[in-house]
């Protein structure tokens, strides 16, 4: 047990469970507010998006700090993002739509914010399914190619948020800004610029 808690990965696992633990405790406590379903949908959606952004932050952080060990945590971050996306989707399919396939299909086709969220979710499925070491080995170079799907998934996740807000765009814009930053630092041009700044 002692050895386990000294490993950073274990702490990350505990941290990743906290949002779920909070929801459970609030549920038991009666603290989910007047509309618990909305509370859970918002909370799990937010954590799915935060999880994706954290996953995308690993590579830039590694470059910035020179700590190549960070990449070991990327998989767990990505899987937590997927886990919360699953809870989020389940909340919608079950509590919002009572698993009614026709209503769900109509929603996906007719409402752009649902289309975006659903597509983001679909894109995440193969990533989670190929997150094992074995899959990595089996797919070789194609693994990296496949896992670039995280970019459109994150962009769609942010669009999903932007399109569902009634009027006050502040919160989704914050996520859009963070995602934009994480994407811009990946551009070759930015990297060259950063390298030059570092040399000087």
């Amino acid at each position: 047990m002692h050895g386990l808690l000294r490993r950073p990965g274990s702490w990350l696992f505990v941290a990743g469970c906290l949002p779920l633990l909070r929801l459970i405790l609030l549920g038991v406590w009666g603290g989910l507010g007047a509309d618990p379903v909305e509370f859970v949908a918002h909370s799990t959606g937010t954590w799915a998006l935060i999880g994706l952004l954290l996953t995308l932050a690993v590579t830039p952080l590694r470059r910035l700090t020179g700590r190549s060990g960070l990449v070991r945590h990327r998989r767990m971050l990505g899987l937590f993002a997927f886990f919360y996306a699953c809870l989020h989707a389940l909340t919608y399919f079950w509590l919002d739509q009572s698993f009614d396939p026709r209503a769900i299909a109509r929603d996906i086709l007719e409402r752009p914010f649902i289309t975006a969220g659903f597509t983001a979710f679909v894109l995440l499925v193969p990533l989670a399914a190929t997150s094992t070491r074995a899959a990595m080995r089996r797919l070789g170079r194609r693994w990296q190619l496949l896992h670039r799907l995280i970019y459109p998934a994150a962009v769609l996740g942010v669009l999903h948020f932007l399109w569902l807000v009634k009027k006050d765009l502040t919160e989704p814009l914050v996520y859009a800004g963070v995602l934009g930053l994480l994407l811009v630092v990946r551009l070759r041009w930015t990297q060259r610029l950063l390298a030059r700044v570092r040399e000087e």
Partner: protein
Amino acid sequence: MPPRHSPDILPSEITPPDIYRERRRFMQGIGALALAAGFGATAEAAPARLTGVRADPQAPDEARTPYRDITTYNNFYEFGSGKDDPAARADSLRTRPWTVAVEGAVNRPRVWDIDALLRLAPLEERVYRLRCVEGWSMVIPWVGFSLAELIRRAEPTGDAKYLEFVSLHDPAQMPGQRRRVLDWPYVEGLRMDEAMHPLTLLAVGLYGEVLPNQNGAPIRLVVPWKYGFKSAKSLVRIRFVEKPPRTAWMAAAPDEYGFYSNVNPQVAHPRWSQAKERRIGELFRRDTLMFNGYADAVAGLYRGMDLKRYF
């Protein structure tokens, strides 16, 4: 007399405000230990009881939404766009002194002092369903009187075809107005016959008590067959006009919010199918009713109108 509550929830199971506050004080004691961040406990004085309120003979046979939910889950962008913002921040609203200007195409314009308005007509309880455009609903025991009472005293002229309702605009009291989330002040409107309809209410109370700030104190409109945003809160002006007023939500998104905004399960909002709703307190969604279940009383107002076009 019909039973006032649905059979699965006994009247005794519904928490009246005084007991709710009692419990809340108890919970606040525990609250010190609460794990939950963001559930800050605020002390609150009990709002005054309104006296001489006539009971609602037509109260629907449905469980009333608990006082706590009605007063902590609000869309009132003047205090922020989060549902819990109004309960947390509406303390800054001062409801005395307060006046409501009744003006425009009327023979007897008047600036009403709120306390005079409260004595304008006998107070009645009206238990109404409230359906939010976002797809949730409540059953709320308002206290107030028909808007028609006020309109009659103003003696509208022949030019008065519509009414414009204007809410308070004061960023010092309403912190949400420091940002231009909407084009302040909040403006709503009704056609004359809608405004004169006996169901259309000027509400000054809730659960037999003075209306809490977060619910639109000291006086607000309640139009139960329309989406909630039509029922403008914290009114300072009622103007009789010839043309349909440009409402705050129409100005914000004309293709999403129409002037009428009648509850209609057949006409979807671009973001929400309006076919179903979640009644606060229930887990699964239920069917939304035409005109929010008030079709018998109000469908006549719209006879011959294409409700898809006039949404």
